[in-house]
Protein backbone atom coordinates (compact mmCIF):
# COMPACT_ATOMS: atom_id res chain seq x y z
CA UNK A 1 0.00 0.00 0.00
CA UNK A 2 1.37 3.42 -0.98
CA UNK A 3 1.77 5.98 1.78
CA UNK A 4 1.29 8.80 -0.70
CA UNK A 5 -0.77 8.57 -3.84
CA UNK A 6 -1.17 11.53 -6.16
CA UNK A 7 -3.32 11.14 -9.25
CA UNK A 8 -3.36 14.14 -11.58
CA UNK A 9 -3.20 16.26 -8.44
CA UNK A 10 -3.16 19.93 -9.35
CA UNK A 11 -3.54 23.17 -7.50
CA UNK A 12 -4.79 26.39 -8.98
CA UNK A 13 -5.62 29.68 -7.30
CA UNK A 14 -5.30 32.96 -9.15
CA UNK A 15 -1.85 33.10 -10.70
CA UNK A 16 -0.56 30.24 -8.55
CA UNK A 17 -0.73 26.82 -10.16
CA UNK A 18 1.03 23.51 -9.62
CA UNK A 19 0.87 20.07 -11.17
CA UNK A 20 -0.76 17.91 -12.30
CA UNK A 21 1.32 15.28 -10.52
CA UNK A 22 0.88 11.52 -10.58
CA UNK A 23 3.06 9.39 -8.32
CA UNK A 24 3.13 6.78 -5.57
CA UNK A 25 5.43 6.70 -2.56
CA UNK A 26 5.53 3.34 -0.79
CA UNK A 27 6.87 2.69 2.75
CA UNK A 28 10.64 3.12 2.80
CA UNK A 29 10.80 4.66 -0.67
CA UNK A 30 12.51 7.95 -1.44
CA UNK A 31 10.92 9.93 -4.22
CA UNK A 32 12.28 13.23 -5.46
CA UNK A 33 10.26 15.46 -7.73
CA UNK A 34 12.03 18.13 -9.79
CA UNK A 35 9.71 20.97 -10.81
CA UNK A 36 10.06 24.22 -12.71
CA UNK A 37 9.61 26.87 -10.07
CA UNK A 38 10.06 27.33 -6.31
CA UNK A 39 6.39 28.20 -5.91
CA UNK A 40 5.29 25.00 -7.64
CA UNK A 41 7.70 22.97 -5.51
CA UNK A 42 6.29 24.51 -2.33
CA UNK A 43 2.67 23.93 -3.36
CA UNK A 44 3.24 20.29 -4.35
CA UNK A 45 5.04 19.63 -1.05
CA UNK A 46 2.14 21.22 0.87
CA UNK A 47 -0.34 19.03 -1.04
CA UNK A 48 1.74 15.91 -0.32
CA UNK A 49 1.74 16.75 3.39
CA UNK A 50 -2.04 17.27 3.48
CA UNK A 51 -1.72 20.98 4.26
CA UNK A 52 -2.95 22.36 0.94
CA UNK A 53 -5.93 20.73 -0.76
CA UNK A 54 -5.70 19.78 -4.43
CA UNK A 55 -8.01 21.81 -6.68
CA UNK A 56 -8.38 18.84 -9.02
CA UNK A 57 -7.25 15.23 -9.10
CA UNK A 58 -6.71 13.12 -6.04
CA UNK A 59 -4.23 12.97 -3.17
CA UNK A 60 -4.35 10.14 -0.65
CA UNK A 61 -2.02 9.94 2.33
CA UNK A 62 -2.16 6.43 3.72
CA UNK A 63 -5.71 5.99 2.35
CA UNK A 64 -6.91 9.24 3.94
CA UNK A 65 -8.14 12.15 1.88
CA UNK A 66 -6.71 15.49 3.10
CA UNK A 67 -9.92 17.26 2.11
CA UNK A 68 -11.95 15.39 4.74
CA UNK A 69 -9.47 13.61 7.03
CA UNK A 70 -6.60 16.06 7.24
CA UNK A 71 -5.81 15.22 10.88
CA UNK A 72 -5.19 11.55 9.99
CA UNK A 73 -3.05 12.65 7.04
CA UNK A 74 -0.93 14.89 9.25
CA UNK A 75 -0.30 12.03 11.68
CA UNK A 76 1.27 10.10 8.79
CA UNK A 77 3.11 12.87 6.96
CA UNK A 78 5.67 15.14 8.59
CA UNK A 79 6.35 18.35 6.73
CA UNK A 80 9.70 20.13 6.63
CA UNK A 81 9.48 23.62 5.09
CA UNK A 82 12.14 25.09 2.86
CA UNK A 83 12.53 28.28 4.88
CA UNK A 84 15.01 28.19 7.76
CA UNK A 85 13.67 28.95 11.24
CA UNK A 86 15.07 31.57 13.56
CA UNK A 87 15.08 29.47 16.72
CA UNK A 88 18.20 29.89 18.80
CA UNK A 89 20.14 27.12 20.51
CA UNK A 90 18.88 28.17 23.95
CA UNK A 91 15.25 27.91 22.77
CA UNK A 92 15.72 24.39 21.36
CA UNK A 93 14.12 22.58 24.32
CA UNK A 94 11.18 24.99 24.28
CA UNK A 95 10.76 24.51 20.55
CA UNK A 96 10.74 20.72 20.90
CA UNK A 97 8.28 20.90 23.81
CA UNK A 98 6.03 23.09 21.63
CA UNK A 99 6.17 20.64 18.73
CA UNK A 100 5.61 17.70 21.10
CA UNK A 101 2.49 19.38 22.48
CA UNK A 102 1.11 20.01 18.99
CA UNK A 103 1.73 16.39 17.99
CA UNK A 104 0.53 15.13 21.39
CA UNK A 105 3.67 13.10 22.03
CA UNK A 106 5.39 12.67 25.38
CA UNK A 107 7.61 15.71 25.98
CA UNK A 108 10.36 13.81 27.80
CA UNK A 109 10.61 11.19 25.05
CA UNK A 110 10.51 13.92 22.41
CA UNK A 111 13.35 15.83 24.08
CA UNK A 112 15.44 12.67 24.37
CA UNK A 113 14.86 11.76 20.72
CA UNK A 114 15.50 15.36 19.64
CA UNK A 115 18.83 15.35 21.48
CA UNK A 116 19.87 12.20 19.62
CA UNK A 117 18.81 13.73 16.29
CA UNK A 118 20.61 16.98 17.08
CA UNK A 119 23.78 15.02 17.69
CA UNK A 120 23.38 13.20 14.39
CA UNK A 121 22.75 16.52 12.62
CA UNK A 122 25.67 18.28 14.29
CA UNK A 123 27.11 19.36 10.93
CA UNK A 124 23.85 20.90 9.82
CA UNK A 125 22.95 24.52 10.52
CA UNK A 126 20.35 24.68 13.30
CA UNK A 127 18.03 26.84 11.20
CA UNK A 128 17.61 23.85 8.86
CA UNK A 129 18.08 21.09 11.44
CA UNK A 130 15.40 22.22 13.92
CA UNK A 131 12.40 22.01 11.56
CA UNK A 132 13.55 18.53 10.49
CA UNK A 133 13.94 17.42 14.11
CA UNK A 134 10.57 18.98 14.92
CA UNK A 135 8.93 17.00 12.12
CA UNK A 136 10.60 13.72 13.13
CA UNK A 137 9.57 13.78 16.80
CA UNK A 138 5.98 13.18 15.64
CA UNK A 139 7.20 9.79 14.29
CA UNK A 140 5.78 10.27 10.80
CA UNK A 141 5.79 7.36 8.36
CA UNK A 142 6.31 9.77 5.49
CA UNK A 143 8.62 12.79 5.53
CA UNK A 144 7.78 15.54 3.05
CA UNK A 145 10.64 17.91 2.31
CA UNK A 146 10.08 21.17 0.49
CA UNK A 147 13.27 21.95 -1.48
CA UNK A 148 15.76 20.57 1.04
CA UNK A 149 19.35 21.83 0.88
CA UNK A 150 21.51 19.72 -1.43
CA UNK A 151 24.52 20.21 0.86
CA UNK A 152 22.73 18.43 3.71
CA UNK A 153 21.35 15.50 1.70
CA UNK A 154 23.43 12.75 3.41
CA UNK A 155 22.58 13.96 6.93
CA UNK A 156 18.88 14.42 6.16
CA UNK A 157 18.54 10.99 4.56
CA UNK A 158 20.48 9.40 7.42
CA UNK A 159 18.12 10.70 10.12
CA UNK A 160 14.98 9.81 8.19
CA UNK A 161 16.19 6.18 8.45
CA UNK A 162 13.69 3.78 6.91
CA UNK A 163 10.86 6.27 6.60
CA UNK A 164 9.42 7.10 3.21
CA UNK A 165 10.67 10.44 1.92
CA UNK A 166 9.07 12.67 -0.66
CA UNK A 167 10.91 15.82 -1.66
CA UNK A 168 10.41 18.56 -4.21
CA UNK A 169 13.29 20.33 -5.93
CA UNK A 170 13.99 23.02 -8.46
CA UNK A 171 17.16 21.43 -9.78
CA UNK A 172 17.91 17.95 -11.03
CA UNK A 173 21.14 17.53 -9.04
CA UNK A 174 19.30 17.97 -5.74
CA UNK A 175 16.55 15.62 -6.90
CA UNK A 176 19.13 12.93 -7.71
CA UNK A 177 20.70 13.36 -4.30
CA UNK A 178 17.38 12.86 -2.47
CA UNK A 179 15.57 10.27 -4.59
CA UNK A 180 16.29 7.11 -6.47
CA UNK A 181 16.84 7.75 -10.20
CA UNK A 182 13.82 5.66 -11.20
CA UNK A 183 11.60 7.87 -9.04
CA UNK A 184 12.27 10.83 -11.27
CA UNK A 185 10.62 9.11 -14.19
CA UNK A 186 7.25 8.61 -12.48
CA UNK A 187 6.40 12.23 -11.92
CA UNK A 188 4.30 14.44 -14.11
CA UNK A 189 1.36 13.24 -16.08
Amino acid sequence: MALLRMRNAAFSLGTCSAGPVTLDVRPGERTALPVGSPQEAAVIALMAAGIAKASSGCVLIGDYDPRVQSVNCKRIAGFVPHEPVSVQERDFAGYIAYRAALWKVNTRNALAYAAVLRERLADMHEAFAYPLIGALIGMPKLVVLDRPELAYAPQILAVTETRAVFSTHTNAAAAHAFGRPHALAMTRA
Partner: protein
Amino acid sequence: MRALTAVVAARLYVQRRIVLYSFVAALIVGSLQPQGAVGPILFCSLLGIIAALAQSPGRSPHLDRCEQSAPLYGRELARAKALVPCVAAGLGALVYAGAALARGAFDAPLTFAITLAAVVACTLVALSATLRQGSSRGLYVLLACAASAIAYALGVVLHVFAAELAFCVFVSFFALRQYGEALARYDPI
Protein backbone atom coordinates in the same frame (compact mmCIF):
# COMPACT_ATOMS: atom_id res chain seq x y z
CA MET B 1 -5.43 21.08 26.30
CA ARG B 2 -1.65 20.71 25.86
CA ALA B 3 -1.87 21.87 22.27
CA LEU B 4 -4.03 24.84 23.26
CA THR B 5 -1.57 25.88 25.97
CA ALA B 6 1.38 25.42 23.61
CA VAL B 7 -0.17 27.51 20.83
CA VAL B 8 -1.20 30.29 23.23
CA ALA B 9 2.19 30.36 24.97
CA ALA B 10 4.16 30.30 21.71
CA ARG B 11 2.11 33.07 20.11
CA LEU B 12 2.18 35.27 23.19
CA TYR B 13 5.94 34.77 23.38
CA VAL B 14 6.44 35.70 19.73
CA GLN B 15 4.16 38.75 20.10
CA ARG B 16 5.47 39.72 23.52
CA ARG B 17 6.49 43.18 22.32
CA ILE B 18 2.97 44.05 21.11
CA VAL B 19 1.54 42.71 24.39
CA LEU B 20 4.04 44.65 26.47
CA TYR B 21 3.45 47.90 24.58
CA SER B 22 -0.31 47.46 24.97
CA PHE B 23 0.12 47.06 28.75
CA VAL B 24 2.20 50.23 28.94
CA ALA B 25 -0.34 52.09 26.81
CA ALA B 26 -3.21 50.76 29.01
CA LEU B 27 -1.36 51.93 32.12
CA ILE B 28 -0.89 55.43 30.70
CA VAL B 29 -4.44 55.79 29.33
CA GLY B 30 -5.91 54.28 32.52
CA SER B 31 -4.02 56.86 34.58
CA LEU B 32 -5.12 59.74 32.34
CA GLN B 33 -8.77 58.68 31.97
CA PRO B 34 -9.69 56.76 35.14
CA GLN B 35 -13.40 57.69 35.27
CA GLY B 36 -16.19 56.31 33.11
CA ALA B 37 -16.47 53.33 30.79
CA VAL B 38 -15.95 55.02 27.41
CA GLY B 39 -12.17 55.12 27.77
CA PRO B 40 -11.58 51.49 28.74
CA ILE B 41 -14.12 50.04 26.28
CA LEU B 42 -12.83 52.10 23.37
CA PHE B 43 -9.17 51.65 24.18
CA CYS B 44 -9.28 47.97 25.11
CA SER B 45 -11.46 47.14 22.08
CA LEU B 46 -8.80 48.76 19.94
CA LEU B 47 -6.17 46.63 21.70
CA GLY B 48 -8.30 43.55 21.02
CA ILE B 49 -8.60 44.39 17.32
CA ILE B 50 -4.84 44.98 17.03
CA ALA B 51 -4.08 41.75 18.89
CA ALA B 52 -6.55 39.87 16.69
CA LEU B 53 -5.06 41.27 13.48
CA ALA B 54 -1.61 40.27 14.73
CA GLN B 55 -2.75 36.64 14.32
CA SER B 56 -3.03 37.11 10.55
CA PRO B 57 -1.26 34.43 8.50
CA GLY B 58 2.25 35.45 7.54
CA ARG B 59 3.10 37.49 10.63
CA SER B 60 4.63 34.45 12.37
CA PRO B 61 5.30 32.17 9.37
CA HIS B 62 7.01 29.34 11.22
CA LEU B 63 4.29 29.13 13.90
CA ASP B 64 1.68 29.19 11.14
CA ARG B 65 3.41 26.31 9.35
CA CYS B 66 3.81 24.27 12.55
CA GLU B 67 0.12 24.72 13.40
CA GLN B 68 -0.99 23.91 9.85
CA SER B 69 1.12 20.76 9.68
CA ALA B 70 0.12 19.54 13.16
CA PRO B 71 -2.65 16.94 13.52
CA LEU B 72 -5.10 19.41 15.07
CA TYR B 73 -8.78 19.80 14.27
CA GLY B 74 -9.89 23.20 12.98
CA ARG B 75 -11.90 23.85 16.14
CA GLU B 76 -8.89 23.11 18.39
CA LEU B 77 -6.72 25.52 16.44
CA ALA B 78 -9.48 28.15 16.31
CA ARG B 79 -9.93 28.04 20.11
CA ALA B 80 -6.20 28.33 20.70
CA LYS B 81 -5.69 31.15 18.22
CA ALA B 82 -8.76 32.98 19.54
CA LEU B 83 -7.50 32.76 23.10
CA VAL B 84 -4.27 34.62 22.27
CA PRO B 85 -5.75 38.07 21.47
CA CYS B 86 -8.43 37.60 24.15
CA VAL B 87 -5.72 37.02 26.78
CA ALA B 88 -3.70 39.98 25.52
CA ALA B 89 -6.68 42.34 25.41
CA GLY B 90 -8.13 40.98 28.69
CA LEU B 91 -4.85 41.59 30.49
CA GLY B 92 -4.73 45.05 28.91
CA ALA B 93 -8.19 45.74 30.37
CA LEU B 94 -6.97 44.49 33.76
CA VAL B 95 -3.97 46.83 33.64
CA TYR B 96 -6.30 49.68 32.66
CA ALA B 97 -8.61 48.89 35.60
CA GLY B 98 -5.62 48.68 37.94
CA ALA B 99 -4.38 52.10 36.82
CA ALA B 100 -7.88 53.59 37.15
CA LEU B 101 -8.28 52.10 40.63
CA ALA B 102 -4.94 53.54 41.66
CA ARG B 103 -6.19 56.97 40.51
CA GLY B 104 -9.25 56.65 42.78
CA ALA B 105 -11.87 55.28 40.38
CA PHE B 106 -13.72 53.03 42.83
CA ASP B 107 -16.14 51.77 40.17
CA ALA B 108 -13.18 50.30 38.26
CA PRO B 109 -14.05 46.63 39.08
CA LEU B 110 -17.56 47.00 37.60
CA THR B 111 -16.16 48.93 34.63
CA PHE B 112 -13.61 46.14 34.17
CA ALA B 113 -16.40 43.53 33.99
CA ILE B 114 -18.33 45.61 31.42
CA THR B 115 -15.14 46.23 29.44
CA LEU B 116 -14.01 42.60 29.47
CA ALA B 117 -17.31 41.38 28.02
CA ALA B 118 -17.21 44.00 25.25
CA VAL B 119 -13.53 43.41 24.49
CA VAL B 120 -13.85 39.62 24.16
CA ALA B 121 -16.80 39.94 21.76
CA CYS B 122 -15.03 42.63 19.72
CA THR B 123 -11.77 40.64 19.55
CA LEU B 124 -13.46 37.42 18.45
CA VAL B 125 -15.35 39.21 15.66
CA ALA B 126 -12.13 40.92 14.53
CA LEU B 127 -10.39 37.52 14.31
CA SER B 128 -12.40 36.61 11.22
CA ALA B 129 -10.80 39.59 9.46
CA THR B 130 -7.41 37.87 9.67
CA LEU B 131 -8.47 35.23 7.12
CA ARG B 132 -9.90 37.73 4.65
CA GLN B 133 -8.59 40.36 2.30
CA GLY B 134 -9.78 43.70 1.02
CA SER B 135 -13.22 45.05 1.78
CA SER B 136 -14.43 41.97 3.67
CA ARG B 137 -11.47 42.37 6.02
CA GLY B 138 -12.47 45.97 6.68
CA LEU B 139 -16.08 44.91 7.12
CA TYR B 140 -15.17 42.47 9.91
CA VAL B 141 -13.18 45.18 11.69
CA LEU B 142 -16.22 47.48 11.42
CA LEU B 143 -18.43 44.67 12.77
CA ALA B 144 -16.05 44.28 15.69
CA CYS B 145 -16.33 48.00 16.44
CA ALA B 146 -20.12 47.75 16.15
CA ALA B 147 -20.19 44.83 18.63
CA SER B 148 -18.18 46.89 21.08
CA ALA B 149 -20.46 49.93 20.59
CA ILE B 150 -23.61 47.88 21.17
CA ALA B 151 -22.09 46.34 24.30
CA TYR B 152 -21.30 49.87 25.52
CA ALA B 153 -24.83 51.04 24.81
CA LEU B 154 -26.34 48.11 26.69
CA GLY B 155 -23.97 48.11 29.64
CA VAL B 156 -23.32 51.82 30.16
CA VAL B 157 -26.03 53.89 28.45
CA LEU B 158 -28.96 51.59 29.32
CA HIS B 159 -27.36 50.25 32.53
CA VAL B 160 -28.44 46.65 31.76
CA PHE B 161 -25.32 44.66 32.48
CA ALA B 162 -27.11 41.31 32.12
CA ALA B 163 -28.25 42.27 28.61
CA GLU B 164 -24.73 43.35 27.70
CA LEU B 165 -23.33 40.07 29.01
CA ALA B 166 -25.94 38.04 27.11
CA PHE B 167 -25.24 40.00 23.92
CA CYS B 168 -21.48 39.50 24.26
CA VAL B 169 -21.81 35.77 24.96
CA PHE B 170 -24.10 35.40 21.93
CA VAL B 171 -21.78 37.37 19.63
CA SER B 172 -18.65 35.62 20.95
CA PHE B 173 -20.14 32.16 20.41
CA PHE B 174 -21.06 32.81 16.80
CA ALA B 175 -17.84 34.73 16.07
CA LEU B 176 -15.72 31.84 17.38
CA ARG B 177 -17.77 29.33 15.41
CA GLN B 178 -17.45 31.42 12.26
CA TYR B 179 -13.69 31.74 12.79
CA GLY B 180 -13.31 27.98 13.28
CA GLU B 181 -15.19 27.25 10.06
CA ALA B 182 -13.16 29.84 8.14
CA LEU B 183 -9.94 28.41 9.55
CA ALA B 184 -10.91 24.84 8.55
CA ARG B 185 -11.58 26.01 4.97
CA TYR B 186 -8.51 28.23 4.85
CA ASP B 187 -5.87 27.28 2.31
CA PRO B 188 -2.41 28.46 3.32
CA ILE B 189 -1.38 29.33 -0.26
